[in-house]
């Protein structure tokens, strides 16, 4: 490839990429602002997963009964508080 051919190929590449970059488009991907409710719903999902794991591990014999009950109570309390806040926000 000669220098002239290289220059032509380079200019063509630059033009194609410039057109692609600045092509006028009216539809853009947009996103609404994430709210506290969105965050709490994500957290709820995570807490449910933690409870699922705890339950499964108990069934698998990893936890003694008393340890399981204590941990489950803690997680359920946390979930209850979260669900309460979600309910309030959903009413608003």
């Amino acid at each position, binding site marked *: 490839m000669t220098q002239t051919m290289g220059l032509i190929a380079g200019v063509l590449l*630059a033009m194609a990429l410039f057109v*692609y970059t600045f092509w006028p488009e009216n539809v853009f991907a947009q996103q609404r602002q*994430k709210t506290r409710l969105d965050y709490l719903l*994500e957290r709820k999902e*995570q807490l449910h997963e933690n409870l*699922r794991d705890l339950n499964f591990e108990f*069934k698998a014999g990893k936890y003694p009964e*008393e340890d399981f009950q204590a*941990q489950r109570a803690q997680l359920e309390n946390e979930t209850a508080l979260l669900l309460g806040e979600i309910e309030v926000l959903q009413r608003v």
Partner: protein
Amino acid sequence: MAFFGSFALLIALALAAWNLLAGALALRWIATGQPAPISPERLADTARRAGIAGFWAVTAAAFALVWSVFTNDFSIAYIMEHSNRALPGAYKFSALWSGQEGSLLLWAWLLGAYGFVLRLTHQRDVKLYAYAGAILAGIQVFFLLVLNFAAPPFALLKGAIPEDGNGLNPLLQYPEMVIHPPMLYLGYVGFSVPFAFALGALMMRYPGEKWIRITRVWTMVTWLFLTIGVFLGMHWAYAVLGWGGYWSWDPVEIASLMPWLTGTAFLHSVMMQEKKGMMKSWNVWLIFITFLLTMLGTTLTRGGLVSSVHAFAESSIGYWFLAFMVLVLAVCLFTYILQYSHLKSERRVESLVSRESAFLFNNLVLIAACFVIMWGALFPVLSEFFVGNKVTFDAAWYNRVAVPIGLFLVMLAGVGPLLPWRATSLKSIRRNFVLPVIALWATVVVCLAVGVRPWHDGAFDQGHFYALVAFALSAGVITAICSEFLRGARVIAKQSGRNYLAAMVLLVRRNTRRYGGYTVHIGVVVAVIGLAGAAFNRSAEQEMALHDKLVIGPYTLEYLGPTEDSNPNFDSEYAQLMVYKAGRYPFLMTPGKRIYLASRQPQTMVAIHSVVAWDLYLVYEGTNPDTGQPIIKAFLNPLVSWIWAGMLLMALGTLIALIPKQWSVVSEQSALPSVAEGFER
């Protein structure tokens, strides 16, 4: 092509600069709500498109370089220095990363490719991806500045154009060298993506931990590439360098290990943030440090600060990298201080004996390991700078420090999964640790019985002691992890009526991440068993006349004479050795030497016979000039194949962990409603 390639790199730089500036401006306008002369969303979209277009521009430049190698365009200095006409096609392709300029171009191309995928999938979280895209563009601007102004791959040769090039470094003319550097680079460059997401999430005060879920795949894929890259590098060193080992604490090896250690720590601790909302600051700094370590590794080796078997010559790009690292650190520090309040943990570690604390210990040990070996790598540079005397640490120093740390990590790999979250009662410890502890001590007894003893001729043997500890810990950890699989499978088998094997498959599918992770742990343990085998390496060296015999372990080697071969790229000579195991089962091994015609450089060609228990490793050391007879060095290296098997298991585990969890939960829900739901109905 040189002109086109240079032009494409300039276009790529302009596009990356636009991506960075327009992206940053648009995000600033969106964040502050300031009135803007044009729609910030439109501006942000042009930035995103510039990132995509930039990838094509870098691709064009990389294509121009590869084309120039294949068309033997020796007017380009890089091609003249790293290729020649007789070089086989696959190695011509690998010439792209065999020199400094080419490897920087590969880095920029991979960064562009990662960014290309990221920008195409931006609808998953438009704002977070826009931040990450702008940060990646900032990194790309740096690399393109270096490529355009400090290390241009298309620089033309001054003076007359030679008929042929100098050829590729003989050490790199090995099949693995075609895939090892791209794998390593995919790992190195890949950490830019989680770094960009973490910094972006911090800049925008991303609410919640969902960004971790978004970046998980990126982090795991990157970690997988880096793991494979590190192990392929070890295998290359083993099969090519001809000294009988695979790891010599070379600065380039250390450079790849440091981000692997912190990246591994990040993969573990990020689970704490996702599940428990803990260790937010720690995680942010872990990924910042991991990214900076990929840069430091490049500075150490590519910048010519330290010498290594595969580091490039001294150049000025080390200063570019140092300046960039200082800039990145300043940006990270500034953002961290500004957004510190956003990183408050939701809870603390409640007990020293819990899975949280196991993760924390794991992280502390990994970081300690990283900084110890970094100290070893930097000490020669620092001592030369401050005292004017280059002091280097030998492999024994690294082994003394790294082996105990590594063994502690192996122990944690087994202890962690057995500990419950939050706190552990004595009853729970007894329940979960009985079997692993029995396996551990049983292994100690068996090892002592078969002769693996921490003393040798009445004196303490540190290598054998560590090997004994490694075998015992490995047995304990494998038992612990297997018991996790079996217990889970038993629950599913009981509830679904399936057999154990089907239940095991279902178990893995319902929680791919956990059981994929456990498979990685088994892979690590298998690799550690292989590494521990080095304590029992044996070697023998002998000058051999025709039909002379050399005995090593169960093998007897008989010399059958020399043979020669020649092709346009190299001349070779081999020693033919008939190998008998216990006097039977003969097979032929042919260690040799090559002389590459373009560079006139010699290269040892090792012959390896690998079985589960050991490798028979033969090196042809040349001929005695007085007698004309070949000198053969034989090594018997126990358990080496376990290291490569461990890598395969680690790769398999990571692939399992990458399978989306939704799919597994859905599969399981249909079969096992009560287990899947988690709550007693």
